[in-house]
């Protein structure tokens, strides 16, 4: 057993961190995020991301987890997380036939009003229907919809659930005002849009289950990055800010809160690596491991952001301070797909018999 990142993974992490620090530090993304505008991000970065190999098929889930953690740490507004989540396993070659897939920017669209927002909830029939290779209907709460070149949509036809690819040019996007401006939510409308089926209907439920687990693991990894950045902000402030003649980090009420945040993130990191391992090894525990990682890492990120706002005091309460942005991303990750309530229910169902 060996619980460290390999040399290659450490190198990937380091090079990603260096690239992002130079090319997309959080300060540079903020005017884009706040500026609203059509994009809310810098599309030029996508070519560089592709050139770095971040979209290569050879990257495994652990590599992707390393990357989304680093991107989360700088709240990268580019749709990398969305693309990783939206790419169903095994359909890369099919997607490649449609457009410059090395540059593909994807997002998954599954949610509809009136039913649960989990990915597996989308398996029950909704109002979005595929007929004769076209799709009509709509999806809500689609992440990064205005930034992508294509959509992977969970819908239905007369056979049952379907997973189709639709080019962005065929989709109408209605953006919503979103708390986490770095990852805006939108509604999309489809009117007889050209739909490419990605997998046989009989396989959709199984693929959706895997995609939900992967998405939970990636959300957990990203949350670790967000939490880490928030913790760094809090630590820096605690070391530099003096009151009553001392740096405030010398006071246990301050330092102990930071320690607890650090501990929570570290414990969640262990769960995240375990979840990724379970998915790669197709381990029996993979569903519960991913649920555990997601619930723990996102909670850790949220709590760390709250601690940092507390430590930084009035400054942390201002728009100009970075803390609120990390906080909003952390909260978005916490509710993404499935929140605490549903995840703990699922874990309980797996580990606890219902009794007499």
């Amino acid at each position: 057993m060996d619980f460290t990142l390999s040399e290659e993974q450490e190198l990937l992490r380091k090079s990603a961190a260096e690239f992002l620090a130079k090319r997309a530090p959080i300060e540079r993304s903020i005017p884009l995020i706040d500026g609203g505008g059509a994009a809310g991000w810098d599309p030029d970065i996508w070519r560089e991301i592709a050139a770095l190999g971040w979209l290569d098929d050879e990257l495994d889930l652990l590599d992707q987890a390393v990357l989304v953690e680093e991107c989360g740490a700088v709240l990268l507004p580019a749709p990398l997380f969305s693309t990783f989540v939206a790419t169903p396993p095994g359909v890369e070659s099919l997607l490649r036939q449609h457009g410059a897939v090395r540059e593909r920017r994807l997002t998954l669209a599954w949610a509809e009003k009136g039913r649960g927002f989990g990915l597996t909830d989308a398996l029950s029939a909704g109002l979005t229907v595929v007929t004769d290779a076209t799709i009509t209907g709509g999806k809500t709460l689609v992440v990064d919809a205005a930034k992508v070149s294509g959509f992977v949509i969970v819908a239905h036809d007369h056979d049952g659930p379907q997973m189709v690819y639709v080019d962005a040019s065929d989709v109408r996007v209605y953006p919503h005002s979103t708390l986490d401006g770095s990852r805006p939510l939108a509604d999309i409308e489809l009117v007889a849009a050209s739909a490419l089926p990605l997998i046989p209907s009989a396989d959709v439920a199984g693929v959706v289950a895997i995609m939900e687990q992967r998405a939970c693991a990636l959300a957990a990894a990203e949350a670790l990055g967000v939490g880490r950045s928030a913790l760094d902000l809090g630590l820096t402030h605690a070391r530099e800010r003096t009151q009553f003649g001392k740096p405030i980090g010398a006071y246990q009420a301050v330092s102990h809160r930071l320690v607890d945040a650090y501990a929570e993130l570290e414990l969640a990191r262990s769960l995240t690596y375990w979840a990724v391992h379970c998915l790669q090894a197709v381990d029996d525990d993979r569903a519960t491991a991913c649920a555990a990682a997601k619930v723990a890492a996102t909670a850790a990120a949220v709590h760390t952001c709250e601690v940092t706002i507390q430590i930084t005091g009035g400054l942390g309460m201002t728009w100009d301070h970075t803390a609120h942005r990390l906080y909003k991303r952390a909260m978005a990750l916490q509710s993404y797909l499935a929140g605490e309530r549903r995840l703990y229910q699922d874990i309980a169902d797996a580990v606890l018999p219902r009794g007499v």
Partner: protein
Amino acid sequence: MEFRDTVAEAAFRSSLRAWFRSNRSNGEAWDLNVPADVVAARAWSRSLHDAGYAGLTWPVEYGGRGLDPTYQAIFYDEMAADRAPIHVGVIGLNMAGPTIIAWGTAEQKHRFLAPLLAAEEIWCQGFSEPGSGSDLAGATTRAVLDGDHWVINGQKVWSSHAHIADWCILLVRTDTTVPKHEGLTFLLVDMHSAGIEVRPLRQLTGEPEFNEIFFTDVRIPRESMLGRPGDGWNVAMTTLMHERGTLGFLFAAELQSNLSRLVEFVAVPAADGSTPAADPTVRAEVAREWVAVQALKFTNYRSLSRLLETGIPGPESSISKIAWAESNQRMTTLATRLQGMAGGLSGESAPWNGFWQQQQLRSRGNSIEGGTSEILRNIVAERVLNLPRAR
């Protein structure tokens, strides 16, 4: 990153599992802290030793197997799954032994390590005093050189297993003229020496688990020490590192055992007729504890790499101890509260013979013993997060 056992690790695991199956004494594991039947506890520990399961990571020349810490982690994993009793020499295995290995002379290692592993000799720790607990360097128990002997006078407190111990790792003050950290010496004391009185202290659980030890003109050979006079603080730091490090795996294992008991417990109708496992809030709380147990388990595994590198647990192990204490407190409290008013019963008339309420009361000590959660947070703050010193 590889979570699966290597071929060798898997072989070790499966033969260990088989051994537990065919060698388990009947009945429940003894309470980690109060071996109810010392004779039986020693016999069980002896059988663990004879099968090669004591001192897995210790050097082969002293009776260990020279394996890397992963095997110790696997051992505790399987022990937890089997709910097997631990080796009665837990203080010897995890504190005294590693300290002797790090600081002892060849003679001392040959003298002490093998009997420790075989549970022929049981160790206790003499660190805390009424006036110095967290502030360990404030120790005032005095040792004065008289010819070839140290003469010890003073008092230690909270010493677990002192009432059954043969030897004691004792931190004493040998020099009152230098700064407090520099005037300490680490002695190895025969608990059968004249002048030693052990007084059990009754805990809030009702059980006498820890003790006061009174030293009145106790004479021990001058060479019965680790390091030199004045090295006591540094030697004690080695002990504390191990206490917080390797014990982390044992704690995680105990927590896993308690979790599996909790899962059983909630499935059975309570005294008031309700079944806790059918209650969504209870299910969510149990799920939460399951998550915490896995997090602790894999965090310990991750800390293995540092152990492998340096042989010494790092300050990150303080996180494990804090997390374990809080998790165990929550879990035992949950199980006690689920009994409703019947949770106020103890002994035979109580559900499960009062197991959970006993564990719950005892768990209040988890955040105090082996480094209080407050001190451990200070350690993480200063040594991991580089925050300014609190004191």
